Every structure is written in structure tokens, then in C-alpha cells.
């Protein structure tokens, strides 16, 4: 390998290492089993590497990475599961008789993540970018939607999440 190529590879791997938390959050969002998450993680890194040449540095590495990673996760094909194979899901508090308010932020987050799994791929992308703290304009840019459309979709997703959590028997305050 040439010295220049080696340097490019190392700088790419270092950039991915810095932002791997974002990638893993995307994998957790789009895949439920640990094995599937690892496969998707590998896939995202592969696509990032393939698309790396097209990164011109006009935007931040992380913004470009969000775009490629979400794109990959959304068009990623689920593996065909053999009959009888089960997906281990993240534990969350058991449902009570009545709607129970949750106080602990960790419990809230676990429940919230559980609820997100019931959203569509596009809805997951919207709420993910919102939770990552992106502005409406950034979200519109990454998703290829108009800012007004992003606002409408975000409100719809928030409402949907509220009702999913209520159906689980909880209420977040």
C-alpha cells in the first residue's frame, strides 16, 4: 500500500472511530438483534469507505456521515431469518394496570427507544436526527424534504410516539 493511501485509510478509520457512537445509535434504531446490528455497522463503514472519495469536505465529516449512514440503514435488507430464531429485545419496564408515570430518565430512554422500533424507516430517521440535535434546516437537507415538511413530520412522529408509549401503559413526564 502506498504511503498516501495508508494515510487516507488511517485518517478515515480515525474519523469513523470518533463518530462511531452515532453509527451504533443508527444500527440500534434500525436493527433489533445484536448480530444484525453488527452486520449493519459493518455495512455502514463499508459504504462510508466506498463513498469516502465523494466527500469533498464542504460539510463536516459528521454531517456527511449522517447522510451516508442513514441512507445505508434505510435501504439495508433484513436478513432472512430461519424459523424459530428469535430476536433478543432490550428489556423495558413491565406494563402496569394503569398508565404509570415514569420519573427515572434512564427508564424513560429505554421505553422511548422501544417505542421508536414501532416507527417506519422514514419516521425513525426524522426522530433520530431530532434527538441528535439537528436543526430543521439540517434535517431537511439530510432527508431531502422541505423544512415545513420536516416540521409536520416531526410533530406527527412525536404524537405517534406518545400514543405508542401510552399503549404500552406508560406516560413520560
Amino acid at each position, binding site marked *: 500500500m502506498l504511503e498516501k493511501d495508508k494515510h487516507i485509510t488511517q485518517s478515515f478509520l480515525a474519523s469513523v472511530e470518533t463518530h462511531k457512537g452515532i453509527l451504533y445509535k443508527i444500527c440500534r434504531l434500525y436493527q433489533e438483534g445484536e448480530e444484525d446490528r453488527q452486520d449493519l455497522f459493518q*455495512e455502514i463503514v463499508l459504504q462510508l469507505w466506498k463513498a469516502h472519495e465523494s466527500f469533498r469536505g464542504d460539510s463536516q465529516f459528521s454531517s456527511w456521515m449522517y447522510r451516508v449512514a442513514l*441512507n445505508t440503514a434505510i435501504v*439495508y*435488507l433484513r436478513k432472512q431469518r430461519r424459523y424459530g430464531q428469535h430476536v433478543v429485545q432490550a428489556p423495558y419496564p413491565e406494563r402496569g394496570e394503569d398508565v404509570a408515570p415514569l420519573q427515572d430518565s434512564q427508564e424513560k430512554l429505554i421505553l422511548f427507544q422501544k417505542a421508536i422500533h414501532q416507527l417506519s424507516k*422514514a419516521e425513525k430517521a426524522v426522530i433520530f436526527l431530532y434527538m441528535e440535535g439537528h436543526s430543521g434546516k439540517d434535517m431537511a437537507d439530510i432527508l431531502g*424534504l422541505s423544512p415545513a415538511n420536516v416540521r409536520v413530520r416531526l410533530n406527527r412522529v412525536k404524537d405517534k410516539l406518545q400514543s405508542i408509549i401510552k399503549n404500552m401503559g406508560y406516560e413520560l413526564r
Partner: protein
Amino acid sequence: MNFDELKDAWANEPVEGPSVPTKLKSTTGNAIYRLRKNMKTEFSWTLIGLGLTLIFMFRQGHFSNLTFCAAFMLFAQSGYFFTRFFLFYKRSGRYDIGLKKNIRQFVYELEINMEVYRTYSICVTPLACLAWIGLLGGEHSSYIRQYFNADISTNPEKLISMLAVLVALQVFGAVMLQLHQKTQYNRYLKELKSVVSEFED
């Protein structure tokens, strides 16, 4: 629900994922890249087919006008269609546009190119068959040689039988292509279309 509060918990949550792989796998579960890979494989096989045709032509040295015209048209049409497919291949898999636009554009162009591929197949199947029958048959069978050099104005039945063979080959080619597209492309197209419809809602 207070989403801002959740945002803080989300940001501060320690994420323990896998380490970044230094060696990447070569297989892919990405629908767009699987399609690109299929296109690449098919392009390679077609190139091999065209290359073999050229080799046979040079090896044989002499062939009927009909064989030459069929082979010439086969190369000309393949050149035109494969330039189109190549341009589509280059355009796909880009990340400089938004998610929705990227996937929608890919699906739109894929559908068009699948139609173009059908047209290509319909155009070149009879030409390829004629060229190969002329090249192989002309070398080994005097009957085929006579058949290709026959004066069709005095042998209309030969013309009719030749046309019947061409139509049969074309129908066979179209059916095979339909099956091929169903297994190699439709599954991914369906998956991508469902994503597009989610964004269109």
C-alpha cells in the same frame, strides 16, 4: 412527553458498540449496492459474449453479409445501450443529495433502465442469434451456409421459417429476461419502493 429532557438523556447515554473493523466484508446487504453489483456482473458477462463474437469473427475471416450485418448491429446497439446503463450506474450510489431524493431518483431511473434493458434484449436477441448461427453454423454446416446465402425472393418458405425461428427466439429471450429481472432486480426494487412510499406519505 418532554422531548428536550429525553434529548439530554439520549446525548449522554454511553453507547458501547462494536469496534470499527479494519478489514471490511465484501458482501453487502444494501439494496442499491446489490443492484449495482448485479449490473456489474451482467455487464461483464455481456462483454465476454461480445468478445467471443469478435474472436469468432476474426478467426473465421469470411462470413455471409447477413452474419456481418447482424454482428455489426449487435455491437452498435450494445454500445448504445451499455453507454446508457453505464451512465445510470455512475449516477447511482451518490450521497450528495438528500435521502428521499436519492432513493426516489434511483427507483425512478431503475424502472426506466429495466424497461430499456427489456428493449435492449428484444433488439439484440435476434441479432445475436443470427450472428452466432451464421458464425458457428456457417463454418460447420453447408446447410446453414446455403440457408444464409439463399435468395429469399425465390425461396419464400425459407424466409418464413427464418422469421419464425427469430420470433420464437425473441419470445424465449423476453420470457427469460422477465424471469431474470424478477429474481435479480424486482426484490430490491420492491424494497426501495416501500421506502419511497414512506417518505411520500
